[in-house]
């Protein structure tokens, strides 16, 4: 490997690295505004100047300069310092001195670098330029006078988000960033523009003037808005969650998160259930925990286990599901289900419901077939990864399902299960790392067991699963789903699944239905069943309930979530539950006493120990099994044979911004949905 000297210290580096990267290898920090590791190199801010020998005797932009063997790099010479000070002075010529009223203050790259390279005073006596504000949608607030034209936002929108909507208009001193005719940015990843902006030109609109970074308590935790379990940091002040930022995690979300992850948190302060309610004379009335438990116990004791049911929702932590499952199992209830959308997964080997290639595996894939999935809406960050792989030209993409705009081109092979049939006896394909990505749209149909069988047969025939590579992937949309399936939160023998429970309730065959955060079911079918809703928001489930037990949202409790890859992740508590609300597992622990079946754990630790003991996969924290078991996974044996209807696949996510109770309570998400609808309407009108 070539060797370069950075400030006299020799460093080995890989060919193709830039001088900036080599300097970082040596531990030297290079100031930069336009350079970003995950974007193309623009080289236009000039802040990263270094001195390089051999070479012309002038400072050079290290971000765009390839490093060479035997090169000598100086990052702290007087010439470099003077050059950077000059660049900084020019940047500040047109940058307003409004840090005290700027939301970026305290976490601003320009502010930070100005501490090192700025002058005490200004030599600029002329007028500063002023730039008109631009509209960029409900999430991005602009103060374009602060813009230093690094074009990170333009590059992110074009390269990562795949929506070429931002551009640098005009030239020279008049250059300004804008969307076309100031339309809203239509990407599901638009919130990341705010993170990328090194100055305060693009700031978060919902968070505007809310807090200073140093006032916030920062909690590193895990996202639950989709099945990826992106790494996030929750910033809270007192009891209020003010914002969510991404954490870098190359295995899952790199450093992006979707707009829902980032901006749905204002829903955590609205529509909250903060005390138990009991329905008396047809009206929900505030009650104490004791009254609520007594009401439940009376109904439970008055019925038989076969006339009871439990459905878990999409945002549940594994502990609460484990406690609920243990309690209902001890009552003898067979009808429990964590698949409120009616998905058929949950029987057979664990691999049949995981994203086995792992999310990072997309970077190696050479063919991807999306079946009944719209990853742009179901997992935008994953979609960005597929797009990046596609941009390299090494990825063949095919879609069976809706022909949606996925930000990359694909071969549309059909919309219904019929299109899969041609692959059942296809024979091995010449690709080395092919992937099936199966969305919930293919798995929540009445005929999905047969569809799954067909997909398994196709995967087997095409050689999607082989030693060292498991290309069979299920893309989940619910954060709780894999955890639920892993612990067997599915109907026991003779039990009813979600559909059957609703049908039974409608027919009067179900007396007690316990909804654990389940809101995405058809509550009009609950009939005369006594409905207990345990959850966080006054959404569909709570409105249909006879007893409401207030639980804790994902930011308010420590919890285990298993993402779509089967990666067990531990979320932390950022704030405390609202009002009288309790952590969900403890509600079941308390209720179990009233029901006479005391759960055998008194603390979260004991519950976790039990969970891991019963289901060892929960003990493998932050580990995605990936292809390890590819050799023993018989993909051809999954699903059950049967008739397949020729109806098109439909993604379960139609309104990206409104998929769960937190997002539906969020004003920001409602605004986004409205704005997107308006933009789509305009497009349709064109």
């Amino acid at each position, binding site marked *: 490997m070539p060797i370069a000297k950075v400030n006299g210290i020799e460093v080995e580096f890989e060919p193709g690295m830039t001088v900036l990267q080599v300097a970082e290898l040596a531990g030297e920090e290079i100031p930069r505004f336009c350079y970003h590791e995950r974007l193309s190199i623009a080289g236009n801010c000039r802040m990263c100047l270094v001195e390089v020998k051999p070479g012309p005797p002038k400072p050079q932009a290290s971000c765009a300069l390839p490093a060479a063997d035997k090169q000598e790099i100086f990052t702290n010479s007087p010439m470099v310092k003077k050059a950077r000070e000059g660049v900084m002075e020019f940047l500040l010529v047109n940058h307003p001195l409004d840090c005290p009223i700027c939301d970026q203050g305290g976490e601003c790259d320009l502010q930070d670098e100005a501490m090192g390279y700025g002058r005490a005073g200004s030599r600029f006596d002329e007028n500063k330029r002023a730039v008109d504000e631009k509209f960029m949608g409900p999430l991005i607030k602009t103060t374009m006078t602060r813009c230093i034209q690094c074009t990170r936002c333009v590059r992110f929108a074009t390269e990562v988000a795949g929506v070429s909507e931002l551009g640098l208009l005009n030239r020279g001193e008049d250059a300004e960033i804008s969307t*076309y005719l100031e339309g809203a940015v239509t990407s599901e990843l638009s919130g990341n523009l705010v993170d990328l902006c090194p100055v305060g030109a693009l700031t978060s609109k919902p968070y505007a003037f809310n807090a200073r970074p140093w006032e916030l308590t920062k909690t590193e935790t895990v996202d639950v808005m989709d099945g990826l379990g992106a790494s996030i940091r929750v910033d809270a002040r007192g009891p209020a969650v003010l914002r969510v930022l991404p954490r870098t995690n190359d295995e899952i979300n790199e450093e992006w998160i979707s707009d829902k992850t980032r901006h749905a948190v204002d829903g955590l302060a609205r529509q909250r259930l903060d005390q138990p309610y009991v329905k008396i004379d047809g009206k929900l009335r505030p009650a104490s925990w004791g009254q609520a438990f007594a009401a439940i116990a009376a109904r439970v004791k008055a019925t038989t286990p076969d006339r009871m049911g439990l459905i878990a929702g999409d945002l549940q932590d594994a502990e609460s599901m484990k406690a609920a499952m243990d309690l209902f199992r001890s009552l003898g209830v067979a009808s429990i289900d964590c698949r409120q959308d009616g998905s058929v997964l949950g029987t057979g080997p664990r691999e049949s419901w995981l994203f086995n290639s792992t999310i990072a595996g997309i970077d190696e894939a050479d063919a991807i077939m999306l079946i009944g999935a719209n990853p742009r809406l179901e997992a935008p960050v994953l979609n960005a990864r597929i797009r990046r792989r596609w941009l390299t030209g090494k990825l063949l993409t095919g879609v069976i399902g809706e022909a949606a705009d996925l930000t990359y081109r694909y071969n549309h092979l059909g919309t219904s299960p019929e299109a899969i049939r041609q692959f059942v006896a296809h024979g091995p394909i010449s690709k080395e790392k092919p992937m099936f990505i199966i969305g919930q749209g293919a798995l929540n149909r009445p005929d999905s067991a047969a569809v799954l069988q067909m997909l398994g047969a196709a995967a087997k025939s095409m050689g999607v699963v082989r030693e060292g590579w498991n290309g069979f992937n299920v893309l989940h949309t619910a954060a709780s789903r894999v955890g639920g399936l892993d612990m067997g939160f599915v109907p026991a023998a003779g039990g009813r699944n979600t559909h059957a429970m609703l049908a039974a309730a409608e027919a009067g065959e179900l007396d007690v239905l316990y909804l654990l955060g389940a809101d995405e079911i058809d509550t009009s079918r609950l009939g005369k069943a006594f409905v207990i809703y345990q959850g966080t928001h006054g959404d569909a489930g709570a409105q249909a309930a006879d007893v409401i037990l207030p639980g804790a949202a994902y930011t308010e409790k420590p919890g285990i979530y298993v993402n779509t890859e089967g990666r067990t992740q531990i979320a932390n508590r950022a704030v405390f539950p609202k009002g009288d609300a309790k952590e969900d597992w403890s509600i079941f622990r308390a209720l179990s006493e009233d029901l006479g079946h005391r759960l055998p754990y008194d603390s979260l630790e004991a519950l976790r120990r039990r969970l891991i003991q019963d289901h060892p996969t929960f003990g493998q924290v932050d580990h995605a099994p990936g292809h390890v078991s590819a050799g023993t996974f018989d993909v051809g044996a999954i699903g059950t044979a049967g008739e397949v209807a020729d109806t098109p696949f439909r993604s379960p996510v139609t309104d990206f911004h409104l998929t769960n109770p937190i997002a539906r309570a969020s004003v920001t998400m409602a605004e986004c949905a409205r704005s997107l609808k308006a933009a789509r309407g305009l497009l349709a009108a064109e």
Partner: protein
Amino acid sequence: MSVRRLSAQQPDSFAFSDETLEKARWWMTKYPPERKASAVIPILWLVQKQEGWVSEPAIRAIGELLGMPKIRVLEVATFYTMFQLEPVGSAALIQVCGTTPCMLRGSEALMELCRSEIGPKDKLSADGKFTWQEVECLGACANAPMAQINDYYYEDLTPDSLKAIIEAFRAGETPKAGSAIGRHSSEPAEGALTLTDPSLYDGSRAVPITSLPNAREPAV
């Protein structure tokens, strides 16, 4: 130069004329199909030739023709100041050079005349026939002051001669381009000072040649 924005008044639609489209396709064939976006500048020119200016519907149409995002077309159109983003005069677009040689030779008086005859700079005149702009050096400094009117250079202007030219355009004529004082090309204003001998040009000084220079010596 100032911030250039799309005109507030935009037509409802834009359609390429057959001739423009034919020329546009000719330009597009010069590049590989996946790089046809390279033809954006010539096609913006063609559109401006067709319409007189570049409208927002035209930018969208170019984006569709070249398979590129419309924001990229807008970036190019706003970058180059020769693309007119506002409607221009139907009779003439007068671009008066204001750079140093022209300024020393009286371009400021020309601009004053434009102001009084046509109206404020960069704005369509009240009758819709004229727009005048101040532009940077057009490379005809020897014939300063000058202005480019539509596609031609009008040189050696004075306020009087420019006024006559404007009147002619207003009357629907196209006055003769070139020097307003009748000077040939960029010769000295008082006529040529060198190479004036008529015999240089009548062929009388031509000497019959017996052998071609550098020809091979005839073999002896």
